[in-house]
């Protein structure tokens, strides 16, 4: 029985680069196109092709959560998402949360609670918290801790992050969710 485990091409042998594919999607409410290779991640598409550098590249292996964005309102890891697979998607990044010059309630709560030191994980933390509130499964502080566990903060601002999310939840924050 042949199996897929052995399927691979020899190390170092480059496959001829296919022509780039144009992907049409919406980012923060605006129609955008990306001309990308199959292996371009959504993270690189956002940062390099669209100059939306708010989304951060932390580990680039799906372990830290810094690259969290919302696709069709659901939080996902843009470092493990191929841009070519996001045709027609509605992507929301940290740049798309403020509306009409007014910060998203979670952004304001992070400021009010000083929920960061270096700030590198913050865009991912906030996008993840928007997703958490959209999902509507958090009922307690324990729930929030568990459901935010995909976002690592090396400065250790977790106590303040929890307080910021609790406050935003208690105020019924939802703005900017679906887009």
């Amino acid at each position: 029985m042949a199996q897929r485990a052995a399927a691979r091409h020899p190390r170092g042998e480059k496959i001829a680069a296919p022509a780039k594919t144009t992907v049409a999607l919406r980012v923060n409410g605006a129609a955008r196109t990306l001309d990308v290779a199959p292996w371009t991640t959504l993270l690189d598409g956002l940062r390099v092709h669209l100059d939306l550098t708010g989304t951060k590249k932390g580990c680039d292996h799906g372990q830290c959560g810094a690259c969290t964005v919302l696709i069709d309102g659901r939080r996902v890891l843009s470092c493990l998402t191929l841009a070519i697979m996001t045709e027609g998607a509605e992507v929301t990044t940290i740049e798309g949360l403020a509306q009409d010059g007014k910060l998203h309630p979670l952004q304001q709560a992070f400021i009010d609670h000083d929920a960061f030191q270096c700030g590198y994980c913050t865009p991912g933390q906030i996008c993840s918290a928007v997703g958490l509130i959209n999902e509507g499964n958090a009922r307690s502080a324990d729930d929030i801790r568990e459901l935010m566990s995909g976002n690592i903060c090396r400065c250790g601002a977790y106590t303040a992050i929890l307080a910021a999310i609790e406050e935003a939840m208690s105020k019924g924050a939802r703005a900017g969710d679906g887009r």
Partner: protein
Amino acid sequence: MNNFGYARASDVADAVRQVAADDGARFVAGGTNLIDLIKEGVARPSRLIDITHLPLDRVEESADGGLRIGALVRNSDLAWHPQIEARYPLLASALLAGASPQLRNMATTGGNLLQRTRCFYFYDTTTPCNKREPGSGCSALDGVNRMHAILGASEHCIAVHPSDMCVALAVLDARVLTTGSNGERSIAFADFHRLPGDRPELDTTLRADEIITAVELPANGFAANYTYLKVRDRLSYAFALVSVAAALEIEGGTVTEARLALGGVAHKPWRDRAAEAELTDAPATPESFARTADILLREARGFGHNDFKIALARRAIVRALTQAAAGTPQSQSDKRIR
């Protein structure tokens, strides 16, 4: 990343045709494991076949009173599905014990079955690994093997299967439905994953030209007496050192049916029919549970750093069976183990 081509499958037959025509091609759906393996240089597919547009994303009643879960149902959608929460809370609990919310929003049912081990040496392309490069040797045998197998390992590989969901599916006697060039198959869960033996590069019995289309659950979800207890280095977002899925039927203090599977201890979710038989018709007491654990672990063997897992597994089994018998399943939010 290494370069690769990309194509979309228009339907299941097209997906099978495309993967059968190119032995370097791989299916991609959630991508949470495969994209990472490509970045690491561990997987080097020539082409990815995107199956996310196939109509395999529904949870439906099956003819025998169970549920049929489409291969593309996302882990989070499955965990919070009303029918899963009500009838198969063990599966919901195991799903919520795994990965992070972002990963669960991406990862699919079929992809979870095909997760590859997180053995450090499998990921480290500068070291020998029989699973990654057959015949090169096993670095974990005499290396850092804290996370590794205590049951069913071989001299060629001591890696463990990383999934939580699969441990619950093993207990529930799920079946894996596939379609290939030669038609459809329904594979018993116990026969889907394999032990390493002398072919550790093979994780499963899925054929190269087959696609997983669904997972079927039998009618009995053991919703009254179950638990999923996961012991790990961090309280959340970490792979299991040992996990235990337990499901019991109890009448008047006597166990009438016992199901038990362990995660984090073997190359596949570990079930032991002799241990389950020992518990059947026995009183639901700590003494019975300890005897069950002793039988299940009778051939357990450590490799140095992971010796502690044998005692840990014994205690986790007793605790899980106690939780299941009492009808007080482990919470995946409040982490206190009671």
